[in-house]
């Protein structure tokens, strides 16, 4: 049994500290999955909602080892639900960019470019480039296979380079 699976089992048994550790361990992954889909200003709230939802439903998770993929799935659904309710403001193509704060504006433009990629690629790239996770960490935290993550990184990065040139 993996360390994560042990924490899940403990949390299901009523160990609050175990759930707190799961939050610490997976908050970055959930943040990245959500950030890939919705406006930045909404992300923190949705991340909180994801963990509250996971907390509520944890007892229904039969296989503790499936927790990473299960949690990532909740994050994707919560972000999608949120996206249906709110239309993110994406004004970068309309608003002149001043010299000042240019780095920040560039970062927002790059984030927009990543979000415009197919979801599998955008999510993996946000986890890698924004959240700073390695490919192996992305696989471990999302429940995806290392091979899938590698392919997503490779193809996503190629598409992103094309968009940014």
């Amino acid at each position: 049994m993996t360390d994560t699976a042990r924490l899940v089992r403990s949390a299901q048994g009523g160990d609050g500290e175990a759930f707190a550790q799961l939050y610490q361990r997976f908050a970055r992954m959930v943040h990245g999955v959500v950030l890939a889909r919705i406006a930045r200003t909404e992300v923190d709230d949705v991340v909180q909602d994801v963990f509250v939802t996971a907390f509520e439903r944890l007892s229904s998770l039969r296989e503790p080892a499936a927790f990473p993929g299960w949690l990532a799935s909740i994050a994707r659904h919560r972000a999608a639900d949120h996206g249906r309710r709110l239309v993110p403001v994406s004004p970068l193509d309309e608003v002149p960019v001043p010299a000042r704060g240019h780095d920040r504006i560039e970062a927002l433009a790059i984030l927009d470019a990543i979000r415009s990629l197919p979801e599998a690629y955008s999510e993996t790239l946000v986890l890698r480039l924004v959240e700073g996770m390695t490919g192996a960490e992305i696989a471990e935290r999302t429940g995806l296979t290392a091979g899938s993550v590698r392919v997503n990184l490779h193809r996503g990065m190629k598409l992103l380079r094309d968009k940014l040139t």
Partner: protein
Amino acid sequence: MSDYLWDKNGDGDAEVERLERTLQAFAQATPPPPLDLRRRPPARGGFGRGALLIAATLALAVAGAVFTLMERRDTPAWQVTTGGERSMLSVGSWLDTTKGEATLAVADIGTVTVEPGARVRLLSTRSGHHRMELARGTMHATIWAPPNQFFVETPSTLAVDLGCAYTLTVDEDGGGLVTVLVGWVGFTTGDRESFIPAGFIAVTRPGVGPGTPYSERTSEAYRRALALIDFSPGDAGFAPALSRVLDESEERDEVTLWHLLSRVPAAAGRDRVFDRLAAFVPPPTGVTRDGIRAGDRRMLDAWWDALGLGSTSLWRTWSQQWRDDSYRR
């Protein structure tokens, strides 16, 4: 694919490294903010949920307290960079940019660039709440914290960052002008408030407060007419000005029209504003002409929500928070 993209080892990929540096500001904070499991109570019943809720909440509350203690170590000052020289701006101190442009590091949540000839003061800075004053001149703010953490006081309004990049100018008379590049800015003075989205501008006047936001694409005549509506409501030119604004308004101007719903007196043409906005965004179920005429806040909020720009419940909450903060300060 380079090994670096996979595991950050091996020969660096210059493009990947540049993207990492540029995007790292958006990453989840380390450690993450305390989790509030009480924000939505779990369903009743189920094995062990009650005990788990209590135990987890306690554990996270302890973790949150630790984080809070860590954050309070922050020095109550901002770093200032002027012409390559660094100094610190402490709480209560003024900065006059007589020697040229200055860049302020707003704790760890953003930057403010102050143009030459400006006068600013740091009012307070602590985790989750950073407040400065712009007495005159121009500043450019880029904030990446969640909304409602960065505030700028001016002689005529309070600017509330709702997650954005914007330029704010205060003239010698205390009037202000904000141009929003990304996200939102809230202007509030007393009960008068404006919500300015990206691509929009708003002015503010001493003694009156914030004017109605307008799109950067509107004409000068449109802006002059709007200024008359906002700041000279008793002027004989009010009715023609309103006609101009309504006639020239396009779908992009729905934000402007929504603000006018509560600013144009019922007797001075609020029904006409109702009709013009309804032509672009039909009032949702439950929103009536009589209700809008009476200034029903719930109906105004419901109509805003129908614009598809985000829920008013979010900024109503923020609005309450910034009012509370202003009382505490």
